[in-house]
Structures are given as structure tokens and as C-alpha cells.
């Protein structure tokens, strides 16, 4: 056991998987210079040919990676920040997501697209997006949003070993977060939510870094005698709805915390499924705590008010009880 940060967990997963499987390699802009600190020691260990610096041409990078994946490689593409996925949209949606289906299973695309979500620090409108819900609606893509270093490492290993394309959305606000990481190799299966805390009065499903806020809110509510269950879905595609529905059947109340824009967010999706399949378990309307449907301003004081906060989560929990 060792305490590792979120960034170290990413680096360790990459490093260990490259050692395990020679087909694994890294592509990206400024990958070799260890831009965010996730590639420490990789050149030294595996050489320049397994970590490729690419021009600023995301569509090209993605197309090359998809082709390499189809002929047996396992590329991990570092998009640096999530909005840079947009120039590669056609490659992601038309090629990466669909090829296995289009070729009747003769082609597979074992590809990992990593995207950091850097927001809350004045990144302004073009750099602060948290766009995972856009990709949830595209069949063929698996989506993980790890909430802590342990999950980050275990899920990224599963992603690299998976024969289907996986998008990894990594919240930069968690980079310095530490957790105990086992020395032994481990992988976390997709589609298995983690119950971070059990409770009887209200279920809070929180995505990625929102789990930390939800845990703070749950602790505050406990002081008031309200017992909150916090669930981290860990992966959004596949999504562990049975765990969420089972929790709602127990508590009858649901608050969804999602740092994506509210409209068509993951929170919206989960809310809709619970409305359909868990409606008769509910005691109160489902509440969502998401980001306001507007562009992210440069002014951090304004920006930070748009995102979910502990106060907003507490208010939503209270509303389900009122």
C-alpha cells in the first residue's frame, strides 16, 4: 500500500500497462514533455517509439489511433483537455464509436481517449467544458469518470485492456487528491457503482469530483439527523442503474450531482431512468444539482457559482425532505 495522487495513479496505470502489454502506446500533444505529469519515467522505460508527440490536429491524431487500434495496437490518446475532443468529433463518432459495428465485429477498436476537465480556475469559455454527457448519447463509447486515485488507476487499467473504445474524463480538481493504492495489480470492472456511504433517508448520486462534495454534504446532513447514501457510478457507460434503483427503493429520495451542464446531463439521464423504473419507490421529486446552462466566464468569482457546491447539494437534499 502506498499513498498516491490522482496524477500518479494515471501515470502508474499507464506505466504498468505498457510494461504488461507491448501493444500499449501513448499519443498526444506534448506527451513526451510530461506536460501534466502523467508520463514520468515512461520514455526512460519504454523509449520514444511508444510515446508519440503529435501535431495540433486532433482529428488526425484520433484517426491514426483508431487505425492503429484496428490493426492490433492499444493506443492511449492524451487529449490534454476535454474541449479538444471537439475537433476530433467526426473521427470519434463516425469511426471510433462505430467501426466494430460497421465491420460486423471483424474490426475492434481498443482505444482509450483521455481528456482532462480543467475548470473552476478562470479557464474561460473554451477550456472549461465537462462534456461527457455529449458522448454518452453516442452508442459504442464507454465512458469513465473516476472520482479518486484508487478508481482512476483501476478503471484506466480496465479501459486499456478493454477491446472497445473508452473515454476517460479526468477531473483536474482531483489531481492532488491522494488515496491508498495497493501494490498489487488490480482493475476495477466497468458498470459497478461504488456506494461511498450508506444511508436511509436520501440517495445522492454524484459523478467524478462531485463525490467529494456529496460526502461533505452528507456529513453536514448527518449532524442534522438525516442519513444520506452517496453513490459514485464510476462509469457512465455502462451505468450501474440497479445499484441506484436499489438505493432509491430504500430511501425514496434522489439527488443527482453532475458538474456537466444540466441540460441532457448524466443527471438528466439517471433521473429519467429512475422516473421510469423507480417511480413508485419515490417519496419526493428527484432533484438535480448541475452546472447552469451557460458559457463559463473568465471571472472565477462568477464561474465558481455556476458549478455544484456543497451548499447547493445540502439545499437539494433538504428539498427532498420538505
Amino acid at each position, binding site marked *: 500500500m502506498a499513498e498516491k495522487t490522482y496524477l500518479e495513479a494515471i501515470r502508474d496505470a499507464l506505466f504498468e500497462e505498457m510494461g504488461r502489454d507491448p501493444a500499449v502506446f501513448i499519443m498526444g500533444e506534448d506527451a513526451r514533455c510530461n506536460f501534466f505529469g502523467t508520463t514520468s519515467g515512461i520514455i526512460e522505460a519504454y523509449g520514444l517509439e511508444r510515446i508519440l508527440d503529435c501535431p495540433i490536429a486532433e482529428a488526425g491524431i484520433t484517426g491514426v489511433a483508431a487505425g492503429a487500434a484496428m490493426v492490433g495496437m492499444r493506443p492511449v490518446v492524451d487529449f490534454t483537455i476535454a474541449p479538444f475532443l471537439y475537433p476530433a468529433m467526426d473521427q470519434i463518432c463516425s469511426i471510433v464509436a462505430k467501426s466494430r459495428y460497421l465491420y460486423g465485429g471483424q474490426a475492434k477498436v481498443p482505444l482509450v481517449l483521455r481528456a482532462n476537465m480543467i475548470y473552476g480556475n478562470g479557464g474561460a469559455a473554451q477550456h472549461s467544458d465537462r462534456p461527457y454527457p455529449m458522448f454518452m448519447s453516442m452508442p459504442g463509447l464507454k465512458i469513465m469518470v473516476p472520482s479518486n486515485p484508487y478508481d482512476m488507476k483501476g478503471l484506466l487499467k480496465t479501459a486499456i485492456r478493454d477491446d472497445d473504445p473508452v473515454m476517460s474524463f479526468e477531473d483536474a480538481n482531483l489531481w492532488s487528491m491522494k488515496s491508498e493504492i495497493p501494490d498489487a495489480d488490480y482493475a476495477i470492472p466497468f458498470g459497478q457503482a461504488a456506494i461511498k456511504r450508506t444511508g436511509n433517508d436520501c440517495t445522492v448520486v454524484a459523478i467524478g469530483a462531485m463525490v467529494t462534495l456529496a460526502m461533505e454534504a452528507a456529513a453536514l446532513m448527518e449532524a442534522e439527523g438525516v442519513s444520506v447514501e452517496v453513490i459514485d457510478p464510476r462509469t457512465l457507460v455502462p451505468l450501474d442503474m440497479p445499484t441506484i434503483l436499489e438505493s432509491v427503493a430504500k430511501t*425514496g429520495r434522489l439527488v443527482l450531482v453532475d458538474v456537466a451542464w444540466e441540460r441532457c446531463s448524466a443527471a438528466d439521464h439517471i433521473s429519467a431512468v429512475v422516473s421510469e423504473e423507480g*417511480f*413508485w*419507490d*419515490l*417519496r*419526493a421529486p428527484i432533484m438535480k444539482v448541475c452546472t447552469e446552462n451557460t458559457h463559463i466566464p473568465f471571472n472565477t468569482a462568477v464561474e465558481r457559482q455556476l458549478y455544484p457546491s456543497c451548499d447547493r447539494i445540502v439545499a437539494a437534499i433538504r428539498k427532498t*425532505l*420538505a
Partner: protein
Amino acid sequence: MAEMVLPQFGMGMADGTIIAWHKVVGEVVQQGERLCDVEAAKTTVEVGATCSGVLRQILVAAGKNVPVNTVIAIIGDEAVGQNVAAAQVPPPPPPTPAAPISVAEALVPIAIASEKPEAAQMRGHTGRTPQVEPRARRAARLHKVDLAVVVGTGPGGRIVEEDVTRRAQSLSDSSRAGAAPRNLGVGRFHQFRMRFDAGPLVNLAEELAKFYHKTFLIEAMLARAVGVAMSDAGIADGSIGVRADDGTVKVLQQAIALGLTVIADRLAGGEAMSMCSPTIVVDLHLEDWLDETISFDPTGPASLTFGKSARGADDTGTEWTVLLTCSEQGPNVSQSKLFLKSLRELLNSPVAILV
């Protein structure tokens, strides 16, 4: 302005008891909309409004017994104010000593209303249907509780699941359910007694006999009704035993799935005895009068004993009594209640057992 009288459900009905009012004075009612529940000797019937309008007066409080054709309520014109209407119409004759009663009084006989009078009055005052949480609606369906008579104790008077389950509990505890649990003092048994009119079932057996040109034993009719009721009550492993006069038991495996004609054929034929103990043994004592002083010693999970109700030697009526006795291995108390409730509905209108 119209008077609602206590209806007469059959020639033999002389009086009836208002079990519950589902509207309060001042509420708008539509013609046919459920207004109150009336319990007569053999049945409880939901009585609908005879015309549309505003419920102006409730003249017979819930819980009171009055003769048929007694005026029980006044329904006024919705568009006309009460004072205007009163001026145009002569005052209603005083058919009962009961004075017109207030909203609060109308709700008092409801068990839960008396626990939370302030909630009842609040709801009566606004006359607005309270919110119901979804899981309370599910509980109401499950326990067959009418939400109109449930007083909400949740936020803002919302009806919550616990309100419904409490109401269901008080309904099944009261004599209205026609069944009360008894402790036999032998291990953990429970026993329920229920009276019902066997006339419809006997008539149906006769009609079927004419149609199919073969005998439909009353045992077969009862076994089929029991199977359907077991299914309704969610009693798993629905095998039914039918005890013959010589004490042997014919067992119908998976009786819930068997149709009436199959059951009739099997009981008429020499169906083999089964080694396993059936979930419910049906035992008929139709030549005997049955009252609750008779004790039973079920050898299986549950027994269901039918007999004529003890009404006296010259009684030629068709009222029967059924005793359900369950051991620890048998259906639990809530299943037993659901089972008897369903069985009573089936026996009241047995056509449903043909489906």
C-alpha cells in the same frame, strides 16, 4: 338541490351503515362519483352520487346505521350559492335525529382522522386533494386502500406510505373487514372467520351444470376460488387439498394455475393422493352449522373450513361461515387478510372464477 337516500341493495336489506364519506361538505361531486361506502348485512357497497353538484349537507355521520331510503345527504346546484338554493327549496324533512354535521365530524369515524384531528380539519378546510407520494400510491394499490379517506401526515399534508399502511392496518383490524384474528393458544397459529353469502356460488354451479351437462361440485367451485385468492394474496406454492368425507385429502398441485373444469374433473376422478402437505386444505362441513367456538387442528400449513352460519335450526338462508386457520408454516397474517378479502370478492361475484 337533490336528496340522496340510503339505497336498498336487495329485497332483504332493511338498513345500512355508512362506513365512510369520501367527500366533505362543500366539495364538488360528479354524478356516479364515489360518495360514501355503505355496509349492509352481507356486503359493503360504494355508493355514487345520484347527480352532479356540490355536497351541501351530510345528514348521517359515518358509523351510523339508518333504515333504507333515509336521506343521507343533500347535493346542491354547483352554480347557485347555498343561501339562494336554500331559499328556493323547502327545507329537507328531518328523517333522522341526526343534525347536519360539520366537516370535522364527518371525518371523525375514520381511524386515522381521530389520531390527527388537526390534519383532518386542515384538509377539510381547504377541500383540496392532498399530494400523494408515489410510494404511497403503490401501497394504496397493494393494500386496496382508498386514498380519499387517508389523511396525510407528510410535508404540507402530503400522504406518505406510512399513512396508507396505517390505514390498511386499521381497516383490517376493524370489524369492517369481517374478519378478526384469534389466538388459539397452541403454538403460533392465527385464525380468521368470515361470513359470506354462498347463494351466488351455488347458483353458478347450477348454471354450469346445465350448460356442461355434468355436476360441478361445490368443492370444485370453492377450490378454484381459493386458488385465485391465493394468487391475489401472493401465497407461493399454491397447492390445495380438498378433504373428503372419509377424511382423506385430494391434492391439487399448482392449483393456482388450474381452471375450474380441470379442478372439477380431478376432484370427480380418482386423483392420486400426494405425499406433500398442501398449502391450504379445504374442508367442507355443509351439513353443520359453524361458529367460532369450533376449534381446529390443522396438520398442514393452513386449513379453510366452510360451514353454514349458525343462525338457528330453522334458518334456510345461504349465509355460510368460513374459518381460516394458519400455522407458522402457512400464510402470514397480512397474506391471510389479503386472501380472505379476495376470496370474499370472488364469492360475492363468482363469475370471476371462470376466467
